[in-house]
């Protein structure tokens, strides 16, 4: 029983085998891609492993404090070279192997030509609660 974060990147991940930008796909291929993602999430809901998911807007800025009584300092929009996260999903699974298996399945969403993109997803374990028994 451990939670993992799956991160999908707009930019910054290594190039996948089926590396064609979505705006070059044939009509209907984007819909097939979105359908695959939706069915994947629904499957995890049925299996009791789904926690949450969200797509993120590519719009965003860096922001930091500039000291008391001063407005926040921002820097942005993000440069084209920056690693950019497209969305995330959190799953709750019984093993590391299961997390890898599910990430690979999500990575196989179809892209150009209906062929799996096999895009690189980032898989990150969430830190767990402090166990009672430690010695």
């Amino acid at each position, binding site marked *: 029983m451990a939670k993992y974060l799956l991160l999908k990147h707009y930019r910054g991940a290594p190039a996948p085998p089926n590396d064609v930008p979505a705006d070059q796909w044939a009509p209907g291929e984007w819909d097939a891609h979105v359908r695959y993602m939706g069915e994947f999430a629904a499957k995890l809901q049925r299996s009791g492993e789904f926690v949450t998911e969200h797509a993120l807007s590519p719009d965003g800025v860096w922001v930091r404090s500039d000291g008391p009584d001063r407005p926040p300092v921002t820097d942005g929009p993000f440069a084209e070279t920056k690693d950019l996260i497209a969305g995330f999903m959190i799953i709750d699974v019984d093993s590391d192997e299961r997390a890898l298996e599910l990430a690979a399945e999500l990575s196989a969403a179809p892209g150009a030509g209906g062929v799996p993109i096999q895009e690189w997803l980032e898989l990150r374990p969430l830190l767990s609660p*402090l166990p009672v028994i430690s010695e």
Partner: protein
Amino acid sequence: MSVDAAELRRLAPRVLAAVVRRGADFGTADDAVQQAMVRALSAWETAPPKDPEAWLVTVAWRAFIDITRSDAARRNREARVDAEPPAGPSVAADDTLQLYFLCAHPELTTSSAVALTLRAVGGLTTAQIAQAYLVPEATMAQRISRAKRTIADHGLAGPGDLATVMRTLYLVFNEGYSGDIDLAAEAIRLTRQLAFLADHPEVDGLLSLMLLHHARRFSRTRPDGQIVALAEQDRTQWDTDLIAEGVDILQAALARQQVGNYQCQAAIAALHADAQHFEDTDWPQIVGWYDELLTYTDTPIVRLNRVVAIGQANGPRAGLAALEDIPHHVPRRDAVAAHLHERDGALELAAALYASAARSAPNVAERNHQTRQAARLNALIRHEG
């Protein structure tokens, strides 16, 4: 009059066993008992029943019939159950024990077994279990209904496996104290009941282990969640009644001479609980119990904990020598190495190891603890240098 939720939960497995005994399938019976418990919460406010268990069985049975009828109507076939519950014999202890076995069925994943045990034996609602494990209620509901389908598909052949039941309860206990539901207290309650139903020294060992750790719960962390190391814990905060009970149960179990994993772990916990001060701890005997524990459960984590005990019993050099046999990827190895090197006077190495332990910590509290250790040593080094 407000309804005693704890009493209601205590009755839940007995009521479920009664409904199953009257011919209901486990999955539907569990849904029916949940409905009856929700009804009880409001109905008993104004009219508390004379016999709460009989009330729950009657209401749960009616709910079972309603569910079965609506299912049957959907499938367009006749309901095959009687409207009135047949007079069955009263619930035997074996029926409740059988529920434990079903909920920890070997075909279930651990998370499913945990969820089903908390619901069907523990009488918690799906919402409460979801909240305790920080997942959406819909996810927990699916996990539970899948678990029920697995059980329905496989059934329970043979006498049931006590080891998987104990492992499930151990996992619930170890999940700890986050959230509104005190999972540790819930695990103790269910293990107490199991010890009553199943006469086995390892169940007693598990119960003792839980009580001895639970006794120290208020000293383990500060109110803000900061970890307090065993050596620094305020032992006056330890619950002496729980310790005495845990030790009594353990001694009776050990006298039966069927030692196992949980009795060994409880013996180690008892030796810690027995020491008035950290310096009084009988480390050589703890090492002996780790050696015994290894004969039942030879895991890297047990071996690492044994290294800690050796370091206390025979000094940091002995601990560091024993640490050589522990593979580098074992969780918390850097934390143990840091502590041993610090006691051995190698402060810079220790500080680097604490920082490394923080980076690989499996939870936030340990990460913060190891970060503070690294900062403390680095400040000391700067001050001395």
